[in-house]
């Protein structure tokens, strides 16, 4: 028996088709294959996420959001126009103030990567390759629905992807300074004013002091729930797995700050309940690992998954889709409109531990602080192939952590599953290394025979 698809390709003597129609059908088949592969991969990773022990029941809303975007391939649930952003340096408050919904478009998608790989130079990072792939297929609602995209120019890959995207979407670039002197901050502030005008034009709603204050409030509530969450996450023994935590943070990319805050509130209640009842994710003490480095975006969660499947605990992460995504609220010292924008500029740049800045004592300081606060025993430094900014910093970080006698390894990976076995072996050895540094449990008792 032939399937319908085969018949339409091979049946002789059927009605003459125009070349155009044939091309259309061919394209359609290609698109269906893309959709099939993309949704299957996402579903598989969601499955592993749910199978990993210790997931709080309140995590479900976040899983549903990831399912909606990547398995059901629907857009963000909102009645506002959406504004696509890349990177954490785009103030979400400003987008809410324009009556729009921000959505983070940095991608971790293997299927889109395989398409984008042909459209970009070999040494471009997989994150922008995946973005290029999605844009090219035009099949992903979260990209397709955007009224405008905001691309901060943080590295060469971002700069060039902005140029590529510009051909097909309304786009604004934000020039992120390489250092944080006063003059740099002024320049960034001017960029935010420009962004404001473009947002107003894209959405048709003017930004006022009032609407900006509302934006601050919305984001502020999410940040408050987030800091409570981070406080709970530091508990030892652990109340939660890092892979689950990272997935929840990642889901915030496709949720309104309100909905995210509500869902996070549920998680926080559940974690507090775990403290009360003494529920832990494991009876053994798991090696506490800090995961940092290049962005980790769903479904590319193979590294945190492997760490925790192999018996480690990602007890904190310093990544931009993870804990960095929602740090401290902006501090307003001057309540004028200009003062509020200034607060946003300061918050976006000053505390940012991203390696795109030339000077990065900030980052080292932040990592050391996280190591202390989370009782970290080892650091895994993730480098996406082609991500130079993160790779550059590895040496210095290895040296600094060496002084603290904290073991660190660099794991390079790409957006495919070919490297999984190599990664697994290295992660396993790293976890064993941490365990071997602990006081060994001695075997007692006499052996009678073998």
């Amino acid at each position, binding site marked *: 028996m032939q399937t319908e698809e085969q018949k339409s390709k091979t049946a002789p003597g059927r009605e003459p088709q125009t070349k155009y129609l044939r091309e259309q059908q061919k394209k359609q088949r290609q698109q269906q294959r893309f959709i099939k592969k993309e949704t299957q991969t996402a579903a598989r990773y969601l499955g592993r996420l749910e199978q990993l022990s210790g997931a709080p029941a309140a995590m479900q809303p976040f899983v549903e959001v990831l399912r909606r975007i990547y398995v059901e391939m629907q857009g963000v649930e909102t009645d506002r126009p959406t504004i696509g952003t890349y990177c954490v340096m785009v103030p979400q408050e400003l987008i809410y103030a324009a009556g729009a919904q921000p959505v983070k478009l940095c991608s971790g998608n293997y299927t889109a990567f395989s398409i984008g790989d042909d459209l970009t130079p070999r040494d471009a990072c997989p994150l922008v390759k995946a973005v290029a792939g999605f844009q090219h297929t035009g099949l992903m609602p979260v990209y397709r629905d955007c009224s405008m995209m905001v691309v901060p120019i943080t590295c060469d890959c971002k700069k060039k992807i902005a140029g590529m995207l510009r051909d097909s979407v309304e786009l604004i670039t934000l020039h992120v300074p390489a250092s944080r002197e006063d003059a740099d901050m002024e320049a960034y502030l001017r960029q935010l004013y420009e962004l404001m005008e473009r947002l107003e034009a894209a959405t048709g709603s003017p930004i006022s002091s009032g609407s900006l204050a509302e934006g601050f409030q919305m984001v502020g509530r999410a940040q408050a729930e987030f800091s409570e969450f981070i406080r709970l996450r530091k508990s030892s023994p652990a109340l939660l797995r890092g892979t689950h935590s990272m997935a929840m943070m990642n889901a915030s990319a496709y949720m309104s700050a309100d909905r995210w805050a509500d869902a996070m509130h549920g998680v926080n209640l559940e974690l507090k309940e775990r403290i009360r009842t003494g529920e832990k994710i494991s009876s053994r003490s798991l090696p506490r690992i800090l995961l940092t480095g290049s962005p980790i975006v769903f479904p590319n969660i193979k590294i945190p998954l492997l760490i925790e499947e192999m018996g480690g605990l990602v007890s904190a992460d310093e990544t931009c889709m993870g804990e960095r995504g929602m740090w401290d609220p902006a501090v307003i010292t001057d309540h004028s409109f200009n003062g509020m924008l200034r607060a946003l500029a300061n918050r976006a740049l000053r505390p940012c531990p991203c390696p795109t800045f030339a000077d990065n004592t900030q980052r080292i300081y932040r990592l050391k602080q996280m190591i202390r606060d989370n009782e970290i025993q080892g650091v895994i430094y993730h480098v996406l192939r082609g991500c130079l900014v993160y790779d550059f910093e590895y040496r210095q970080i290895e040296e600094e952590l060496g002084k603290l006698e904290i073991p660190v390894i660099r794991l390079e990976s790409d957006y495919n599953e070919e490297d999984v076995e190599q990664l697994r072996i290295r992660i396993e050895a790293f976890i064993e290394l941490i365990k071997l540094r602990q006081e060994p449990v001695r075997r007692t008792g*006499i052996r009678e025979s073998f």
Partner: protein
Amino acid sequence: MGKYYIGLDGGSTYLKAALIGNGQVVDTMVRSTGIDNNGTAQLLARELCNRNAVTPSEVGYIMATGYSRKVLEMADDDISEITAHAYGVRLTAPKEYQPGMIIDIGGQDSKIIYLDSHYAVKNFSMNDKCAAGTGKFMEVIAQILETTIDQVGPLSLESTSPCDINSTCVVFAQSEVISLVARKYDRRDILAGMHLSMVRRIIKMMKKSEKQGDILMTGGGALNIGLHKAFEEELMRDVYVASWPQFNGAIGAALIGSERG
């Protein structure tokens, strides 16, 4: 408790065991794995102990490693191959060796492990898809050249002008060797060329950034003097050879066990 420790290294074809005591290697033993991994391991442990007049009660800890480590139920615990190899070096490397790199050439795969100055694993690369450079590969070549695996190394050292062999792939190299034989090249030159091309393939696997410390060869490949010399030529550095190279994993496992019993 006991003063002896056993390490078991379960590979796909051979099961190897090492007995250590007093921080030194006492004895080693190998058997083919057979169908019943755990049964073979029990027999092996018993024989190893009998030969050295050690009773089970004197064995403080049994640590398994290798491919089949999870099924060796007689062991008290198991550890990954990488960690075991890194530990093994403490007992198998020559005194002057500064930990840096281990090149392990086994029967089926080859791997490189990078150590920091405290013998901790820093990095690692492995060639599990390619047979080039492994014992299996050498066997095939030895057969074509009508010699034995333990002769290929010494023979290659007698070469005066190594052949140029470009294919590093087992499949292609095999036919390349056959055609060289047909063209009446000296087999010593063919072997020398073979070693060089294998070594180049493995060197390609090395991470350029990991250059500290010395290089140590382990695994069956370390017994091949031709391979050893070819590494030294190509890397232009001294390359050390481990004692009991094929038992490095088992010895490392035993040593980790000695911290626990």
